[in-house]
C-alpha cells in the first residue's frame, strides 16, 4: 500500500477540515440563528454565546409573528403542510404510474419502448419554464390554476422520470428466469408482477420514492409560477416570508431550518441510494 508521510496526512486533514467548514458552516450558522432573538443576531461582532430561545419556532408554529410594524399573521405551517401534501401525493401517484411503466420498459421490449423511455427522460432536461409559462394560461382555462391537482400533475415531470429510470434498473436486475419459473408454476402475469417482481425490486422502489420526494420537496419554480399563497410549498413560501416578516431574522432562520430538516432526515435514511438516484440510475452507489 502507499505509505503516507506525516506532512501529507496533516495536509489532507487540513483540506478535509476546510471542505467541511465551507459546506457545513452555512447550515450551522442558520441553525444557531434560529435560536436567537433579533438583538443577539444584530450584535457586532457576532458571537456564538447567547441564551437560546424557542420563540422563533413558537411564533412560526402559532402563525403569529410580532414585527416592528405590529402583529403579523403568516401561516408558515400551511406552507410546510403544502410541501408535505404536494410531495407525498406526487410521489404516490408517480409510483402508481411509474412502476408499471418501468416494468414494461424493463421486461417487455415492445415496439418504440426505448424511444418512449427516452422521451420521458428528456423531460428531465428541458427548461421547466418552457412548459410552465404556457401552462399558466391553460390552467386558467381548465380551472386548474392554483389547485393541488394541477400542481401534482406538473410535479410528475420531476417525479416520473426519476422513478421510471431507477425502478427500471432494479427490474432489469431480476433474472428473467425467476419470473418465468413463477409463470410456469401456474401463476398469471399479474400475480407474477405482484408476488415476484414487486417484492424483489422493493428496495429500488423505496429508494426512488424517497428520492423523488426530496426532489419534489425542493422544487421551487413550479409552485412559484402556478400556485398562489395558500397552495405554496415552503420553498416559495420562505421567499415571501423574508419580505413580509420585516426584520425578524431569527424567524426566517427557523423557517429555513424547518423546511430543510425533512429532506435532511430522508437523505440520511436513503443515503445508500442517493448516488443512484442523482445519476438517474446510471451509477450504483
Amino acid at each position: 500500500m502507499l505509505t503516507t508521510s506525516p506532512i501529507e496526512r496533516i495536509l489532507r486533514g487540513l483540506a478535509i477540515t476546510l471542505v467541511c467548514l465551507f459546506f457545513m458552516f452555512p447550515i450551522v450558522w442558520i441553525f444557531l440563528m434560529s435560536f436567537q432573538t433579533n438583538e443577539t443576531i444584530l450584535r457586532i461582532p457576532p458571537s456564538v454565546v447567547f441564551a437560546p430561545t424557542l420563540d422563533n419556532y413558537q411564533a412560526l408554529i402559532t402563525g403569529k409573528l410580532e414585527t416592528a410594524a405590529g402583529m403579523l399573521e403568516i401561516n408558515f405551517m400551511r406552507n410546510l403542510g403544502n410541501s408535505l401534501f404536494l410531495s407525498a401525493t406526487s410521489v404516490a401517484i408517480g409510483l402508481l404510474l411509474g412502476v408499471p411503466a418501468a416494468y414494461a420498459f424493463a421486461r417487455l421490449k415492445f415496439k418504440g419502448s426505448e424511444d418512449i423511455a427516452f422521451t420521458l427522460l428528456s423531460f428531465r432536461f428541458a427548461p421547466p419554464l418552457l412548459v410552465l409559462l404556457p401552462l399558466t394560461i391553460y390552467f386558467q382555462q381548465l380551472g386548474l390554476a392554483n389547485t393541488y391537482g394541477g400542481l401534482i400533475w406538473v410535479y410528475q415531470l420531476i417525479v416520473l422520470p426519476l422513478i421510471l429510470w431507477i425502478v427500471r434498473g432494479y427490474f432489469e436486475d431480476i433474472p428473467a428466469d425467476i419470473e418465468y419459473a413463477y409463470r410456469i408454476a401456474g401463476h398469471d402475469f399479474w400475480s407474477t408482477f405482484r408476488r415476484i417482481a414487486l417484492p424483489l425490486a422493493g428496495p429500488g422502489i423505496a429508494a426512488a420514492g424517497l428520492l423523488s420526494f426530496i426532489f419534489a420537496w425542493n422544487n421551487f419554480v413550479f409552485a412559484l409560477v402556478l400556485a398562489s399563497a395558500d397552495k405554496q410549498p415552503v420553498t416559495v413560501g420562505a421567499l415571501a416570508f423574508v419580505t413580509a416578516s420585516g426584520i425578524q431574522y431569527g424567524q426566517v432562520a427557523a423557517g429555513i431550518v424547518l423546511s430543510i430538516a425533512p429532506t435532511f432526515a430522508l437523505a440520511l435514511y436513503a443515503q445508500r441510494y442517493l448516488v443512484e438516484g442523482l445519476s438517474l440510475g446510471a451509477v450504483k452507489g
Partner: protein
Amino acid sequence: MTTAMTGQPRPRRFRVSRRVLPYLLSLPALLTCIGILIPFGTAVIYSLQRYRLSQPWARKFNWGENYFNFLSDSAFWNTLKVSVVYAGLTVVLELLLGLGIALLLQKRSRVNNFVSIMLLMPLMTAPALAALMWKLMTNPGFGILSYFATLIGLEDFNWASDPSTAMLTVVIVDIWVYTPFIMILLLAGLRSLPQQPFEAAALDGVPRLFVFWRITLPMLTPFLLTATLFRVIESIQQFDIIYAMTQGGPGDRLTVFQVEAYLNFFQSTNVGRSAALLMILWAITYALSNIFIKNWLRLREKQRGEA
C-alpha cells in the same frame, strides 16, 4: 403423491393479449407526460407570435421576428453571455473542487464516509432555500460573511447587491449546493475502478502524479463526462438560486435565460419574446442532453454489467 393434479392445459381465460400489455402498463405514465407536450407545442407557437399579455388584441403571427430581433438586441446577448459565464464558472469550479474532494475521500474509512454523508446536506437543501441562507449570511446588517469581509478590510462589501460581485456570490451559492453532486458521483466512480492497475503501479513505484494523469483520470472519464454534462445542462438553466437571491439583478447583471424569460412573461408580459428565449435555451439543452444521454447510457450499461 396422492393428490391427482391435472396436468392438462387449462382452458383459456380472458386476458390481455401480450401485444397490448406493455402499452397498457406504460400508457398512464405516458398520458400524464403527453399533457405536458401540449404546452411545449404552445410555446413554439407563442415564440412565433407578437404576443403581449397587456395587449391581447395585437396578438398575431410575426413568424421569425422574435428570433430575428435577438440579433440586434443587446439584452439578449447579455442573457446569453451571463448564462454561459454562469454555467462555465460553476461547472469548471465544481468539477475541480468535486474531483479534489472525491480524491481526498477516496479511501473508505469511517471519517471519510461520515464527511461524504455530511457533504450531501447542501445538495439536499432546496436551491431556493440555499440562496435564502446565503442571503442572510451576506446581509449587510448582520450577515456573518459581511462581517468577515470587514475583518479582512473589505468595507462595504455588498455581495449580491453589488453589480461587480453579484455573479461571484451566486456562483459561490451554486458551488455550495452542487459541488457535492459532482463529488458523490466521482467518489462512486473512483471506488468502482478496478484495483489491479493501481496496485501494479504502486509495486512498480510509479510516481503518483503520473498514476493520476495516466490511470485514474482516463478510467474516470465516463464519470467525469456524465457529471459535467449533467451539471452544464442544469447550470445553463439555473433559475432557483438566481431568482431567490437577486431576481436577476442588480440591473441586468444576472438575467440568465430562465430568469429573463420569467421577467419578460410576468413583468413586461412579452409572451412572444419570453417563449423565443426559452426555445433557444431548449435548443441548447436538447443538443447537450442528446450527448449526455448517449454517454449516460454507456455508463449505465457498464455499471450494470459489472454489478
